[in-house]
């Protein structure tokens, strides 16, 4: 077979990325929930016939690195390649069949060139609710996955273009907001159709052999770049331990131990010595752990490399079965980001021993997810759901960014005016927290404080927070960032401090909830910090002393 030239590869790559973008726009255009439309919590991608991710609409790192793992599991354990017919759609959200956590529903559809299955298109959407013990399906009290919502094993949602309505009915009967879930599922189905059409346009234009060769060339190109980046690492091992506060149910800390060893142009990342899986829902499956590792390695070594499955080939991840980084059925996992972010900071911490000038100090490393449920006089239930962020770590090039969505997630904040227009709350404060960034030659970014008063008679609060005991680390002599905390100040002026992970905390009218997030760690010896930087920090109020 004649090999195709680099120009054709590049042109086909463009077209494949556009196919993923068209799918992404389709979901944005046709979905109904605000989780998808305002927070943009969804992703799309194109895969080869082995399930390798070729092109993706870059949005949320933790999604993108995980879809390929899911499809590979489907192909190896559930639906072998030759069992997929044209127009079939497979759906799953099951963490124990390659999925992430239950709210993330993935769908895949094969692309045919004549009789040949040449690849797949796929989508992932975070759905607003999939049932379980709490609205929004973040149930801090879960001890088994059965309490976290409906589990959809890998099923054919459509066969030869005909959707199996029974599956839809079964799913929708088990979720709190069936209209939105139904709308978002329809969006996912529509996007697959658009993706298939876009890839078939490529086949029509350039032919099947060129497309198939281009897909392999794209993977090999990224693999080559990744291997070159890894080969430049110093030839020694590094070891780092991160301590996570707790699982919200039992005493912590949860230990994440990572050892990194370069082997030629490959890298082995071993989690031996990490804590066993825990009772509460912060466990990670192997696929989740891999996703965080891939993000960290890619960000540290190859931010310029086109992200696809080729990047992952030189990375070997070893996890002890039954540990918090390779949890076994039926461990609960919904709050997985508590540990997932910290897998990334553990890998960063180890890499910092090898390439200190290129790694930032730790960031806040938790998606501060909270939900406040209220009941209106009419009996209508409302759930105000939001995600907070904190500060990024200082780095060799400068101070860390304050109040920015960092690391494994990437979401926007909900405008205060939009929240107040829709929910019975009034904000009293939203600002940066002075002194929250770790001191250092390059200061950590600041965390933020968000406070609001409940204006309904009763509310019920859930939070999935972290960093109440173990702050973001500093590097190269820099100091750690601040701790996080949650406080409720009652109308009578008394206040109580909450634990990091709670559900069903009662709030009354007039109570003010204050959320304070962590600033990033500092980088470099504080004695080396420039005087101008110190006086500017003081003048701007980033520090108070």
């Amino acid at each position, binding site marked *: 077979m004649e090999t195709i030239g680099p120009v054709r590869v590049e042109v086909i790559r463009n077209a494949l990325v556009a196919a993923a973008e068209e799918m992404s726009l389709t979901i944005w255009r046709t979905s109904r929930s605000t989780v998808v439309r305002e927070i943009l919590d969804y992703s799309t991608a194109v895969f080869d016939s082995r399930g390798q991710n070729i092109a993706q609409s870059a949005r949320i790192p933790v999604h993108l690195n995980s879809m390929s793992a899911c499809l590979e599991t489907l192909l190896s354990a559930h639906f072998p390649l030759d069992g997929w017919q044209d127009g079939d759609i497979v759906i799953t959200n099951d963490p124990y069949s390659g999925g992430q956590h239950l709210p993330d529903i993935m769908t895949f559809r094969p692309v045919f060139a004549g009789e040949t299955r040449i690849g797949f298109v796929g989508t992932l959407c975070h759905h607003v609710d999939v049932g379980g013990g709490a609205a929004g399906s973040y149930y801090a009290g879960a001890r088994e996955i059965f309490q976290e919502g409906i589990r959809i094993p890998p099923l054919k949602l459509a066969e030869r273009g005909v959707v199996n309505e029974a599956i839809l009915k079964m799913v929708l009967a088990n979720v709190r907001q069936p209209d939105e879930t139904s709308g978002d599922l329809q969006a996912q189905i529509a996007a697959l159709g658009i993706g298939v059409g876009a890839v078939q346009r490529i086949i029509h234009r350039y032919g099947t052999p060129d497309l198939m060769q281009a897909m392999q060339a794209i993977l090999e190109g990224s693999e080559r770049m990744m291997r070159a980046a890894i080969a430049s690492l110093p030839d020694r091992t590094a070891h780092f331990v991160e301590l996570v506060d707790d699982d919200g149910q039992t005493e912590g800390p949860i230990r994440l131990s990572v050892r990194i060893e370069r082997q030629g142009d490959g890298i082995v990342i071993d989690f031996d010595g990490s804590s066993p899986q825990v009772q509460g829902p912060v466990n990670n499956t192997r696929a989740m752990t891999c996703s965080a590792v891939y993000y960290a390695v890619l960000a540290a070594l190859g931010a310029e490399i086109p992200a696809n499955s080729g990047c992952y080939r030189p990375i070997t991840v070893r996890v002890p079965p039954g540990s918090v980084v390779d949890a076994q059925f039926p461990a609960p996992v919904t709050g997985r980001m508590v540990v997932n972010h910290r897998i990334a900071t553990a890998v960063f911490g180890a890499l910092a021993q090898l390439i200190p000038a290129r790694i930032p100090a730790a960031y806040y490393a938790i998606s501060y997810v909270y939900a406040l449920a209220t009941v209106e006089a009419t009996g209508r239930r409302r759930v105000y759901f939001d995600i907070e962020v904190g500060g990024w770590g200082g*780095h060799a*090039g400068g101070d860390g960014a304050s109040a920015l969505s960092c690391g494994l997630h990437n979401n926007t904040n909900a405008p205060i005016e939009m929240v107040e227009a829709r929910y019975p709350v009034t904000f009293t404060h939203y600002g940066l927290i002075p002194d929250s960034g770790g001191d250092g030659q390059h200061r950590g970014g600041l965390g933020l404080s968000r406070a609001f008063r409940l204006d309904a008679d009763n509310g019920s609060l859930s939070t999935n927070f972290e960093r109440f005991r173990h702050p973001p680390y500093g590097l190269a002599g820099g100091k750690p960032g601040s701790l996080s905390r949650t406080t409720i100040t009652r109308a009578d002026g008394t206040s109580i401090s909450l634990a990091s992970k709670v559900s069903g905390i009662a709030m009354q009218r007039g109570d003010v909830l204050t959320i304070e997030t962590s600033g990033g760690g500092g980088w470099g010896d504080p004695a080396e910090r420039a005087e101008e930087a110190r006086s500017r920090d003081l003048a701007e109020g980033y520090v108070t002393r």
Partner: protein
Amino acid sequence: MTTSVRIAVDIGGTFTDIEVLDGATGLVHQFKTPSTPRDPSVGLIEGIRQASRKFGFDTAHIEQILHGTTIATNAVLERKLPDGAVLTTAGFEDVLAIGRHGRRDVYAITLSPPPPLIPRRHAFGVVERVRADGSVETALDEASVRAAAARIREAGASAVAVCFLHAYANPAHERRAGAILAEELPGVAISLSSDISLEIREYERLSTTVLNALLMPVVSVYAASLESRLREADLTRQIYLVQSNGGVSGLAKAAREPARLLLSGPSGGAAAARRLAAALDEPNLIAVDMGGTSFDISVVHQGAVATVNEGEIDGLPVRLPMVEMRTIGAGGGSIAWVDNGGRLRIGPHSAGALPGPACYGRGGLELTVTDANLILGRLDAKAFMGGAMTLDRDKAVAAAAPLARALGLSVEEVAAGVIAVINSNLSTAIRLSLFEKGLDPDDFALLSFGGAGGVHACEVADDLGVNRVIFPEHASTLSAWGILWSDITHDLTTTDIGPLEGAGEKLARHAARMTAEAERLFAEDGTPEAARELRFSLDLRYAGQAFDLPVPVDGADFSPSALAEIARRFHAVHRQRFSYDEPHTAVEMVALRLAAIGRLPKPVPSPGTSRPAGTAPMMRPVHVDGRVQDVAVFDRGGLGDQVARGPAIVSETYTSSYIPPGWNAAIASSGALIARRLA
């Protein structure tokens, strides 16, 4: 026939383009003169004088000067802005510093965003609070405003942005605070969020207000200097500045609301596209403008230019109506390179005007898109810029050599590769731009202008499945030509969130108030009654949705039957854009908008002169699909009634068009060159 003269001036970084519509003859003239960046008004006046001598019109007959300027845009991009301060609701002083959290570069590890336009120490809170429904929770504490004013004075700020929570619902506190500031801080520019952008979402409204406040001193100084220079030059005519919304405004309003000028760059091109769409009977046009560094896409659908209510400049949100534009960093100066994975990449770096492409011989050593076109013979080394410049093919070949080695290709194969890759970048950007609006390339023709686009347009159309490409006359000054036909456009907004059903009386009240405001603005502009036009529209969504869609309203009719018709239209628009509708779900209104248009008088242009007979083309060797062949090169002025059968090249002073095999091109009666793909 009137003797009045109307002049459009588009000031760019390098050239000031002037279009003159002479009412005495009905002729439209074009003229280019070097820009004078230190004081653009110098080049403007000098250009008008030269044009008057060259085309023989009397400057005393000039009635209007319509002026596109980048003065506001450049002040922001170069951060040449005065020291400012922000006044917010106490407790929310950091909204500007926090922004919306999202990051663009997903894998970036050294995250150090640029500092906000106003430092944190200059953000002051005042005691007051308004609720989402406009009711007052805490009355304005005037002493806290005066205390803040003292600190602003101390800080030496010369511009203040005032943005309180929910001011879109009740601007009373902002107005009172503004009045106190004006009293306490004479000579300081003050901008209220409720004046410039009456829209929900505090960060976007604040960002817009900050930009507006900081630009007020900049644009006021320019407007004053322009007026005095014009007076000295005895050119005391009506001056209008081009806004981002595709219309123009008077100088007084521009100085008050300069943020409306920020994204005005595309307005001229979009206005030209709209006028051409009507003239050519092509209601659906993809207008693409490819210059040295960027490729701008705007869309005319059913005769109207697509607009949006928010854009951004340098990452800063601007919540004001503007022409919708997708821009990618791909132009003639874009640099081709091979990354360490062996990929042939183009851009985002550009050789710019200096050093420029390697073939300019000004020291550029890297291969650009223009170099690739020269290597393939699509550009003429001797006739570039009307012969004002000679291109050096050897330097282009030398720049391509390292890429050829890295990729294992010949120099010509590298050049063809650069063209193939850039064409796929361009067509992908266009496809996505249409796709996000629910539109299909099959229903469109491509309108190509800008100096660098002509050699790519037909192949890009091929990629898209578009079968007509229009190359307008005077493509290199098209933006000024578009400005020539602009009208005054004021955008007014009232944000009011609630069910559409039963909102008739409330909407009628809003409409009456907005109409009165429009009348006041019309009076300020001196727009006669007969030239005034009011266009209302409603931003609507299904209850609970996060995004809304604009739906036009007939007149100012908000009767129950009119509201039912508006809802019906909303379902239809929703179906087109989002592929589904929910006729049984309640429709929610978000904002009532008014575009108040003051039609400016325009002399009538005369129909084009008859076409001269064609002159025979030259022949030149060109690489076509991997083979060198002799290709006909027509001078556009000499094409006459001939048909340029692809492969062919049509050359003009500032640009060339490549007609590939399978395409024919001919001059239409409108004067435009139209290329068609053979069936």
